[in-house]
């Protein structure tokens, strides 16, 4: 009985997968559009400029960090310290801009550079000692968080100059500036992965690191640079959030780790690497954004929201596993 049902699920599942495999992006995009329409019916407040602005602004943060993580997942790598990097870099920018009185734009650059270094340091350790990325980055997460506490002593840094907080808070033609940053990041990362040789190498390493070495790709370099890019995007997210809040809080970033992995996976990037695209990561992030928005609008209890979010992620991972088995058959 149980077996019967399971095989039926597998059958319809595989038919669905067959279609989505051929039209991978179309599938997820279709789901997003469907979700969007359903949401319009569920709540009259969904399709309002105010709500869309809120949604897009929060999507911007998750989206940027998810694109960074998506790049690593394409390689078959992962960085669980992105949240800690985001928080620490926000604090670093705040420290320079507020406490040291450095030019705010230069402070931002310093924060971004710190993010690149932290990401590359992760990548360097992983490739140099051939470590498990998950374990290493969990360790580094604690270290970066600790460093954050050392700098802030747990206190929030306030008093960011107006000249830069506008980047986090403002809007251009009603579009929140973080969303514009996300769009720019997306375009650049799309070009990087799709149009450059570096992008080809990323896919090659993700497909088979052994083959990549055989065709003369310096796999370590590709991985370390990608960790650096992911660190940069994590820092960018953290700094943007600090600018939006006009203060650097040590807790910024913690909540982004899981969505940063879930979004690319929902969007069709295989956790084992080599399959999927940055576009998928963005669409996956959008799906998560719409879902959490409609949950709030639908008046679901705050605690249940977490339960639902968790299940969505679990579903996405099961789907990923199914599609991987399907591909290997």
């Amino acid at each position, binding site marked *: 009985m149980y077996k019967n049902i399971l095989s039926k699920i597998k059958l319809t599942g595989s038919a669905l997968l067959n279609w989505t495999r051929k039209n991978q992006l179309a599938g997820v995009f279709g789901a997003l559009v469907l979700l969007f329409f359903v949401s319009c019916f569920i709540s009259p407040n969904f399709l309002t400029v105010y709500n869309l602005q809120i949604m897009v602004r929060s999507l911007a943060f998750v989206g940027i960090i998810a694109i960074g993580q998506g790049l690593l997942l394409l390689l078959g790598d992962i960085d669980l310290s992105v949240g800690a990097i985001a928080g620490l870099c926000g604090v670093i920018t705040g420290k320079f801009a507020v406490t040291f009185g450095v030019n705010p734009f230069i402070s931002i650059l310093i924060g971004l550079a710190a993010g690149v270094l932290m990401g590359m340091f992760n990548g360097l350790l992983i490739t140099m000692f051939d470590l498990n990325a998950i374990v290493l980055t969990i360790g580094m997460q604690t270290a970066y968080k600790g460093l954050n506490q050392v700098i802030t002593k747990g206190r929030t840094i306030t008093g960011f100059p107006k000249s830069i907080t506008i980047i986090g808070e403002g809007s251009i033609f009603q579009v929140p500036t973080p969303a514009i940053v996300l769009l720019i990041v997306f375009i650049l990362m799309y070009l990087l992965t799709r*149009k450059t040789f570096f992008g080809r190498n990323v896919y090659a390493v993700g*497909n088979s690191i052994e083959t990549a*070495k055989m*065709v*003369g*790709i310096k796999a370590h370099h590709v991985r370390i640079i990608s960790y650096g890019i992911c660190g940069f995007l994590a820092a960018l997210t953290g700094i943007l959030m600090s600018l939006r809040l006009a203060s650097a809080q040590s807790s910024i970033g913690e909540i982004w780790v899981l969505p940063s992995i879930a979004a690319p996976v929902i969007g069709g990037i295989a956790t084992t690497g*080599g399959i999927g695209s940055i576009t998928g990561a963005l669409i996956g992030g959008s799906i998560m954004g719409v879902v959490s928005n409609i949950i709030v609008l639908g008046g679901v209890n705050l605690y249940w929201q977490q339960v639902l979010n968790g299940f969505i992620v679990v579903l996405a991972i099961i789907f990923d596993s199914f599609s991987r088995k399907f591909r290997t058959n």
Partner: protein
Amino acid sequence: MAILEARGITKKFPGVVALNDVDLSLKQGTIHCIVGENGAGKSTLVKILTGLQQADAGTLFIDGHEGNAHYLHSSECIAYVPQELNLFPFMTVAENIFIPFSRSGKSSIFFDEKEMEENAKKYLKRLNMTVDPCDIAQNIPISEQQLLQVARALSREKFKVIILDEPTTSLTKTETERLFSILNVLREEGKTIVFISHKLDEVFSIGDYVTVLRNGELVGESDLKSVDQNWIIQKMTGKEIDFTKNYKPQNPSNEVLLKVENLSGHMFEDISFEVRRGEIVGFAGLVGAGRSEVMQTLFGYLRKKQGEAYFNNNPWKFGNTSSSIANGLIYLTEERKTHGILPFLNVRENIGIQLKHKISKRGVVLQKRDRAVANRVISTYSVKTHSPETKIVNLSGGNQQKVLIGRAMESSPKVIIFDEPTKGIDVNTKEEIYRLMKELAEKEGVGIILISSELEELLRCSNRIITMYEGKVNARYEEHQISQNQILRSIIGVSN
């Protein structure tokens, strides 16, 4: 009466018939040897006997009763020592012997470590092993590990038949003799032993009966007392190969492209050879003789221990695959699926990945050139693919191989190493690959190194043949000296 009998066993894998209508009959209390070249079907036959694989056709009889593979597997009447080491590396010797632990002591639910270690000593002593039951498996010498697998098989006391698949590959002479004396004892106890080996002197020193397989067919069965080595070698090689249809490059030049001197590395030592412009040098040997390791070291994929090489008379830089490719040496791997293709990328991307300078400018891929190169490879090497945008996993093995050859040629190499280029490829495409290799050598002047486990392939394509045995060069044959019989002897370690 036969204790175990197999009739009409047939097993097909995609593209190959591994076994075709093979019979095998084992008499109780005898040692039965199975011999054949690589790929003759020995291991497949054994896996079917042990129940690890299911035959497509054929029947098994145990003590005269018909039985299926599942029964064989669960009844534990067959003990099996596999060819590859498959121990639990971080468990102790005793744990490895008794896993699953139901046999380790009196109770089948709780187990007593002390009792298990005590019990293990019995088997260790029987095999004259020096290791302690508490030693961790990965820390004991390879030869002891191989014997440990035998001990594990022996612990299945109920067995009637024990199958040993090339158990002596990493044993020294004394260890081998020790193993043989145990096999003799087992035979006297009435157990039946199936012994698979490439080494014919071993077969003659211990066996009672021999079965010879070739290309999945049963080609000879005999009492070992009434035949000699020559009979077996003749059966293994079969009919003389038709050399009128050969693919040897004509008129290779004398210009030396690659010169390797006293190269040593993992699994091989002191290898020297030359490759000249426009010739195919064949490397013959058993699986594990170290041929691939030599080439991968040269290519920079593995690390060298010692030795030098010269490429176009310049000292060769080891240890860097990308500089090897840039300097004109390409290695086409035997592990096409895991080390050759990028499975989820399409044909065009698979071709472009090695050609950075050809298809990109300042890091940006030039789509037009990318497509042009892909189309050129597809048409030049007549790759059968729906379009350049088809995922490469959807192509047949032969067409994947042609894509990889095309990719290699686009980076204008001077020397190409083909490691088992026709593994898993159907007969017609094989001929196409031979023709391609010949053309590359004749028209482009490429020096080709061909590693193959198929003797026929080597004989038909190579200008010269070098044989390797256990990590060393065993013999070298110039074109006029090449004979099938001699090379086979050289591969299996018979001194000439």
